[in-house]
């Protein structure tokens, strides 16, 4: 039987034979995850399920990254509830305060997720770990509570869209631009209920951070997972982050796909998702005269060290445009420290950026960068739904780190080569 990547990973966690898409299978899970917004509901569900103990306290992760540092009394109460639950259950991977990072950057960095794993998270961007070759997907709090209780969950085996990427990437084009371009082509429901499987020469040469950025946004096309093969690059990353025993993983050559797409990236420009959906994508040269009030560099999509390096390289010696707030949020304490060591934080601050702690805050309109009515923001985050970052009358544009740095300097959305 010729299997896709999704089918192969599900099969290794499932007793019954996987025969193809549509089948409903029960799989054991490697990790169940929730955050400060979704864990309180999961804890409530666990109580209703009359579950006294999670299936394995070392395979549950609770990361308080959304409203932290707590923005108000209600969010502090939520974190308190999660903290007390973690303590009572002996949860090994509980993070808050100075240890906390944006969950989908933090868990790979700590080697808690990796190749071949099945990860279910009460956060839609759990699909990020597909960059490491993990079948990782977002579920609701009660589904994740069930996984925390039983150590297993059910999946409908998804159909797969295979995306073959070839050609030569221009210097200012990143993984973010490739995924935005793809979402622009297939639409926000283009991969609904399906797996996206990436391959081709461009992918082979791509580092794991760029792969995670791409997998992160599979959900923005409606996808269940965004999967990359496990190659030598992945194994080196996994070893460097403290994991052992991971092995190579590739789809079978004659696997059956719902659709095969070919993307040639030669000559592609940096891409911008315009308001108010991630599929409203245009090359940067077609986005003219958009003055911005705020630029956000960070999030589980583009808050990693490679993103900060690219943005810092562009902004070094320049100044953020007058009247523009450039919010830079390193995604984890580890990334923050590395950026300090390399002088990136100083570069950002010299330019006039606001450097804040690791948090999901502005991405979801939680705090630390909310937009007023009529304001425009260019962000490296993953969603530009109307009202997502604050006022219903604000606009959010999505782009990669290079465009973010250039836009902060120019005060309007520009191609990075123009600054």
């Amino acid at each position, binding site marked *: 039987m010729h299997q896709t990547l999704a089918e192969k990973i599900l099969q290794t966690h499932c007793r019954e034979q996987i025969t193809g898409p549509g089948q*409903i299978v029960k799989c054991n899970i490697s990790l169940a995850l929730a955050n400060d*917004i*979704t864990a*309180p*509901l999961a804890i*409530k*569900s666990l109580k*209703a*399920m*009359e*579950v006294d103990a999670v299936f394995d306290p070392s395979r549950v992760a609770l990361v308080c990254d*959304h*409203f932290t540092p707590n923005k*108000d009394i*209600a*969010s502090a*109460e*939520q974190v308190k509830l999660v903290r007390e639950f973690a303590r009572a259950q002996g949860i090994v991977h509980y993070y808050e305060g100075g240890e906390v990072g944006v969950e989908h950057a933090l868990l790979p960095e700590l080697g808690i997720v990796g190749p071949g794993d099945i990860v279910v*998270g*009460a*956060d*839609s961007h*759990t699909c990020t770990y597909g960059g490491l070759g993990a079948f990782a997907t*977002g*579920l*609701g*709090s*009660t*589904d994740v*509570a*069930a996984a925390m*209780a*039983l150590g297993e969950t*059910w999946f*409908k085996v998804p159909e797969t869209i295979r995306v073959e990427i070839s050609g030569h990437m221009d210097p200012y084009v990143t993984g973010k631009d490739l995924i935005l371009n793809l979402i622009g082509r297939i639409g*926000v*429901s283009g991969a*609904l*209920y399906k797996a996206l499987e990436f391959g081709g020469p461009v992918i082979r040469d791509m580092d794991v951070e760029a792969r995670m950025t791409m997998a992160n946004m599979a*959900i923005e096309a*409606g996808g*269940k997972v965004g999967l990359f093969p496990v190659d030598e690059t992945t194994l080196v990353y996994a070893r460097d982050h403290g994991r052992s025993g991971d092995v190579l993983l590739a789809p079978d050559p004659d696997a059956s796909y719902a659709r095969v797409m070919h993307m040639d990236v030669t000559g592609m420009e940096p891409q911008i998702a315009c308001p108010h*959906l991630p599929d409203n994508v245009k090359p940067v040269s077609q986005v003219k005269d958009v003055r911005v009030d705020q630029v956000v560099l960070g999030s589980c999509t583009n808050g990693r060290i490679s993103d900060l390096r690219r943005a810092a390289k562009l902004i070094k010696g320049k100044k953020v445009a007058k009247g523009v707030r450039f919010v830079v949020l390193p995604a984890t304490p580890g990334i923050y420290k590395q950026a300090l060591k390399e002088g990136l934080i100083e570069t950002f601050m010299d330019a006039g950026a606001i450097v804040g702690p690791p948090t999901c805050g502005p991405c*979801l*309109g*939680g705090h630390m960068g909310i937009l007023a009515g009529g304001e425009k923001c260019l962000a490296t985050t993953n*969603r530009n*739904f*109307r*009202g*997502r970052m604050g006022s*219903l009358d604000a606009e959010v544009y999505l782009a990669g780190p290079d465009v973010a740095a250039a836009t902060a300097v120019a005060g309007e959305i520009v191609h990075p080569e123009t600054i």
Partner: protein
Amino acid sequence: MHFSGQVHKVGDHIDTDAIIPARFLVTSDVRELGASCMEGLAPGWVDRVKEGDILVAGKNFGCGSSREHAPLAILGAGMPVVVAHSFARIFYRNGFNMGLLLLEVGDQIEGINDGDELDIQVEEGVITNVTQKTTIRFQPIPAFMQELLQGGGLIEYVKRQKSA
């Protein structure tokens, strides 16, 4: 199962931020969430909803976040069923887990207007549009989801598994 009520129709790609914006996610109380339902679409939207009314939506309803607060907000607003062209994946699972019935009808959604009275016979797979005097057939609910619903939802399912 049988439902009847007045339609509140929304468009395509209604995301979870529209259903319940992040600023309201500091509670898990269903009634509180219900009072803010669709606040991200239009402030005050929920004020005209009566208990038992039916939400009708276009493509990819519930796209975006995994937040279970979204189906809870719809239930909290008094709407027990959503009829849509199609649903986003996580929202679809969450709906059934929370006891919110979701029916996919594809392009037939065009025939339902805001304010219409619907009568839904779930077992028969038929929606009667009382206002327009038309009927719509919907795709049967997948067997596994039916099993979940009939067994009292995911919470009851886990209770049974734990005691087995």
